[in-house]
């Protein structure tokens, strides 16, 4: 059985194809065509991965199904910016106004199993270029834990929260976390650790 379902939007960019072909991680992931969500029983999965290319208007129409999945203890991981708030805890994205390079440095705010052993420098820059990791915040709801932030303004770029309906929600306000798979840096740790975290029993909050 697959541990997680990844909603697929048929985009070349985002790392989905590399992840699915991976001999170790690929078999843990079911690739679920986005618009098949309404015909899918999510009870078969522990986690649901939603990438930046997702049609969030469609996800808004599936809110009851997503909340049902959370209520049974499921984990939803959302990457990208929030445009359409398809869950109660998802607030619209706010870019850092007129950001400069120093505003894009990634800071660790709290230890989290998904980012354990990942060096912030490997998130802040790719080939010396900043900005790939994030450029603003999906504003965390009250009670959320900020995990990583950006720049001296400490704009939260990653947070975890416990939705009111149940389950767990992990939100990354940037490109898909699975895009770091195969990066050749400590960022390679993100995907195996994300899958392990999703499938481990939920920790006390």
């Amino acid at each position: 059985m697959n541990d997680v379902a990844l909603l697929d939007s048929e985009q070349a960019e985002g790392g989905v194809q590399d992840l699915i072909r991976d001999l170790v991680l690929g078999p843990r992931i079911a690739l679920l065509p986005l618009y098949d969500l309404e015909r899918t029983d999510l009870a078969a999965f522990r986690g649901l991965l939603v990438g930046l290319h997702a049609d969030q208007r469609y996800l808004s129409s599936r809110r009851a199904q997503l909340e049902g999945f959370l209520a049974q203890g499921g984990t939803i991981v959302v990457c990208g910016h929030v445009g359409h708030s398809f869950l109660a805890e998802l607030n619209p994205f706010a870019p850092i106004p007129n950001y400069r390079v120093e505003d894009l440095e990634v800071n660790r705010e709290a230890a989290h199993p998904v980012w354990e052993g990942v060096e912030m420098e490997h998130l802040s820059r790719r080939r010396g270029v900043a900005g790939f990791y994030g450029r603003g915040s999906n504003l965390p709801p009250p009670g959320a834990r900020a995990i990583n932030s950006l720049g001296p303004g400490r704009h939260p770029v990653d947070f975890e929260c416990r939705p009111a309906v149940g389950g767990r929600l992990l939100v990354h306000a940037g490109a898909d976390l699975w895009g770091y798979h195969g990066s050749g840096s400590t960022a390679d740790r993100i995907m195996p650790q994300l899958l392990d975290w999703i499938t481990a029993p939920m920790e006390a909050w």
Partner: protein
Amino acid sequence: MLALLEGGTYFHKEAIEGERLTGRFDRTIYAPELDAAALAGCDALIVADRIHPAVLRRKRPLLLSYLAAGGTLIVLGENRAQDWAPGVAWEFRPTNFWWWLEKGADPGHRIVAPGHDIFHHVGMGELVWHYHGLLTPPPGATSLVEITPEGDPHGRGGSILYDHRNVGGGPGRMIVTTLDPFYHHGSFFMPAASRFLGKLLDWTDEAFRASR
């Protein structure tokens, strides 16, 4: 009358509703809800980049009817247009986000039809950023912007923007590009892509919104 087809993503929403671009579309259509009524009266339909290709394949009969009736489709990148749009031949190229790190680097972009009216607005400053693939314009199409063989990782070169009038001998027209400016503009990443989108819309204002 200019309409935009959008796919419900955050970056489409930001491009449509954000402060930076306002009032550039007479009508916006959510792709899964596209129907013949939505296309009525449209002189041109921009197909925003990175719409879920399954939706575009499903809407292919409507888009073909629109072309056959004399409509203009402006198809942006990363939509797998080769799977649903007539005449489109597209080849993947790996994205080079890094060309500008080398001083004086030439990523190979060339304007090859400078007399085209799109270049009243769009210039090299808007065109030279990364691209995701190369097109082979079909017979009858006019290539507007090409990548030289030296700028192409595969050494062959090709088009990244063309204008195809009288598609299939009919009255329809297609402008096709592999550039994906909605994604980058809506993601607040890549200022040159935002400039390209703004200038592209200056051209569509002129070409398709005669009342303005």
